[in-house]
């Protein structure tokens, strides 16, 4: 009886947003008289960071400090229509809608500043610190705050913008499946190292390493949060979770967290992530969205690592000790496969 180490890998891509379009998001932005901006959305922040992503996208496009932008979700009376936070669509669809709204608001902002500075709006730039100045001549400047004051109380301008982003509806050919599905794809590859106990069938994930191509990491800390949390979910999908452990027999269903198997803190493996950025032509600053895909490569990489360790292919998820032991028994014992470099 022994513990066998194994290493497996997988590589995947992921479609961003609702397939086949018909997938709109809207955003409204306005400034208060002090040059502080509110972004009104009906998008949902379920922990993934919708408010912060759109805040950074809005600040970038407006050319103002991030602290001067506040994102408000979600009230159907004030936030304009959005399909919802699913299908990894939030950053991409809503990010683009916010860019469109911020562009319009920025246009008015620069017009108002131009009027105050008595220059052409096309010659103005923002410094991202709350100032607007003539390109190449930072001394000819006005603050965003003073501009908003002037727009509101003197010029009678609304520094506001509306944005919509729509992937238009497409159709499907019934015979061939020809279609225009998603326009942006993210990519990943992952290596998992496991140890399998051939006496108990238990799998321990020792460590994982991955490379994710996400277009643009709009907030790297939140990317890390998504990818780490998603990898935990991937381990859980691969080795532990299901409400129907003997599917399609529905019996033995768990009723609470005491009965529903999930990994605990001790089961979390060290995880090294590398981010690649190949901007999506239609993404906000090239951004795609890691929301859903972060669990996907973990499942097959672990399954392949289990095979590498003991020579058992488990094709049915989750990969339980019972399934591994049955496989080892059928094979007449553990059959470790050739070790892979670095494992």
């Amino acid at each position: 009886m022994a513990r066998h180490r194994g290493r497996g890998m997988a590589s995947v891509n992921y479609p961003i947003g609702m397939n086949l379009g018909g997938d709109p998001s809207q955003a409204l932005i306005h400034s208060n008289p002090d040059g502080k901006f509110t972004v009104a959305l009906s998008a949902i922040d379920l922990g993934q960071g919708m408010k912060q992503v759109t805040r950074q996208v809005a600040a970038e496009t407006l050319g103002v400090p991030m602290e001067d932008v506040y994102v408000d979700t979600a009230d159907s009376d004030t936030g304009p229509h959005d399909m919802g936070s699913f299908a990894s669509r939030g950053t991409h669809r809503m990010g683009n809608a916010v860019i469109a709204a911020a562009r319009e608001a920025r246009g008015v902002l620069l017009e108002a500043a131009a009027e105050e500075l008595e220059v052409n709006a096309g010659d103005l730039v923002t410094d991202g610190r709350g100032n607007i100045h003539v390109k190449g001549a930072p001394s000819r400047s006005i603050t965003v705050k003073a501009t908003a004051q002037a727009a509101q109380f003197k010029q009678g301008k609304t520094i506001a913008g509306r944005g919509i982003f729509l992937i238009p509806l497409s159709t499907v050919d019934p015979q061939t499946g020809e279609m225009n599905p998603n326009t942006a794809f993210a990519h990943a590859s992952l290596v998992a190292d496991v140890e399998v106990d051939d006496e108990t069938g238990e799998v321990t994930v020792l460590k994982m390493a991955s490379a994710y191509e996400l277009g643009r990491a709009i907030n790297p800390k939140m990317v890390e949060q998504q990818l780490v949390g998603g990898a935990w979910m991937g381990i859980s999908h691969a080795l532990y979770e299901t409400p129907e452990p003997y599917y399609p027999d529905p019996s033995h269903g768990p009723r609470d967290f005491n009965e529903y198997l999930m990994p605990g803190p001790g089961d979390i493996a060290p995880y090294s992530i590398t981010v690649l950025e190949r901007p999506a032509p239609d993404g906000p600053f090239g951004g795609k969205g890691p929301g859903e895909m972060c669990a996907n490569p973990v499942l097959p990489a672990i399954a392949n690592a289990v095979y590498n360790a003991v020579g058992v292919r488990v094709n049915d998820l989750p990969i339980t000790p019972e399934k591994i032991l049955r496989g080892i028994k059928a094979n007449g014992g553990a059959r470790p496969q050739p070790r892979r470099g670095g494992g």
Partner: protein
Amino acid sequence: MLEFRKDLFAAERDDNLNVVGKGAQRQDMPGHVTGRSPFFDDHAFEGLLHLKVVRSPHHHARIRHIDTSAAERAPGVKRVLRGADVPVNKNTLLSLINFGKDDEPTLAVSKVSYKGEPVVAIIAETEHQALAARALVRVDYEVIPHVFDVEEALKPGAPVVNETYPNNYFDYHDRYDHSKLRFGDVERAFAGADFIVDDRYQMSPIEHAPTETNGSIAAPEQNDRFVVHSCAQGLFFSLGTAAKILNLESNRLHFVGGTVGGGFGGKVDSLTEPLSILGAMMTGQPVRYVLDREEEMLYGSPRGAERIYIKDGIMRDGRIVARRIRSYFDAGAYTRLSSYAAIKCTAHLPGPYTIPNVSADIYVAYTNRCPSTAMRGFGITAVDFALEVHMDKGAEACGMDPMEFRILNAYRDGDMKAHRRVAKNTALIECVQVVADKTGWPLSDQARRQSSLTGGGGARADIPATVLDDNGRIGRPETRTGPVTETLPAGTMRIPMTKQPIMEGSAEARPTPPAVPQYEPYRPTPPANQPAYQPQPYQPTPTAPPPTQAAPPSPPSAPPPASAPPTQHGAVRFSSVFGTRRR
């Protein structure tokens, strides 16, 4: 630990950005870490009532009789709701995009199709009273045969799970019992392949297990409106669904949400909103309907099971020349969103690889279990598991290293995908190379030299002559296999391309549109005569000319006005593009 490889694709990226790319603290973090962020259940109301539902104890049964008289007389009970009280007691979620037929009641009337299906709702002054009254409802059931296995469900003579789809499958295009993908000629390619790798995969259901269970609070608002505190993942999606089921104009509903305690796809279904609003309408008081943990686990709609069969034809040099896939989504008793996931899965096949012959049949099957719904990676996660384990077997069959095998077969810019659109912006090869590097996985020099940017297109961009079939015509299960009906000539496309917007920040977007001046980094300058705050006296300027704006690039055009029937409320309905038109 997270690191960047900024050297890769650097030529395609404009990194001269101010805020984007910074790991700034989240706007809502102080509220979250101090426990002050308000979630739907953090709203107190005077006179709040509690709603609990009576659920079916059987997997499949006819309802002979429902007796609620004892429950109505129970202490604290304000109202008992039955199917007849629901204005539009049949809905399908994707009717919001005009996809599929209404098939699911809010409260079952004549039949229950899964264990846990809601039959009666009790509204009482306390949760305890609602639970006590729930036990007093008498439902007389006639148990009928059930089916749990997707392939059993599709056999002739299987129990009919869902009367709207009497063959136990979702109807695609009013024509087929499955979603089809056909590209090239897989059978001929199999015949010429050196190795055939064939296997079956199964993903069991998975529970979303959000910290915050599904729930909502609805309350009468002034002026004949209702405010709804919701945990919906799509606020207008839920509003539209509730407006339709309750036959209300959408502007009588005021949804508040946006801060949700975990969803993972399990809060798209509007499981509670229609009943809590109906309760508020019927009682004139605020009503709270929240699933307890056991309800969330057992009846809160899981990630559905998928069964996937894959057959690959592989050459000795490692090239995959054909891939055939047959898979089954287990929708449970009602459609919810499974019909959409099958289409998404179809478009995703054969995975991120360039394979010249691909065929897929994707079924959505109804079984007598809790309806499944979206979950993180919907339509993709299970098939990616199957594909990537199958890739491992393919590499083994032809004696190649698994990474080299993937790099060899990876799709590249310019390659034709099986759904007849050209791949671009690809990066699979680079991801494999980077992960090989960091894990010390040995790669050959040749594999290291490969790039997503080169080597694609050319012959790899061709659409092959494609054999078509008429297998799986609706209502005729004996037609699931059959002869080739025609061969579509090489290069044939039938669906117009959609115009793709191009945004700034990417190589193709340059030069930058004039309306978005480049970020010019801050250079400290003396504050000069520009104080930070210059309060201006209010000076009305009634004669001022209308403000002129820098013309922004016109946003994508809005959808055409909805042509929905006037009796239908809720969100705008788009026209149907796939599947079956709504009746």
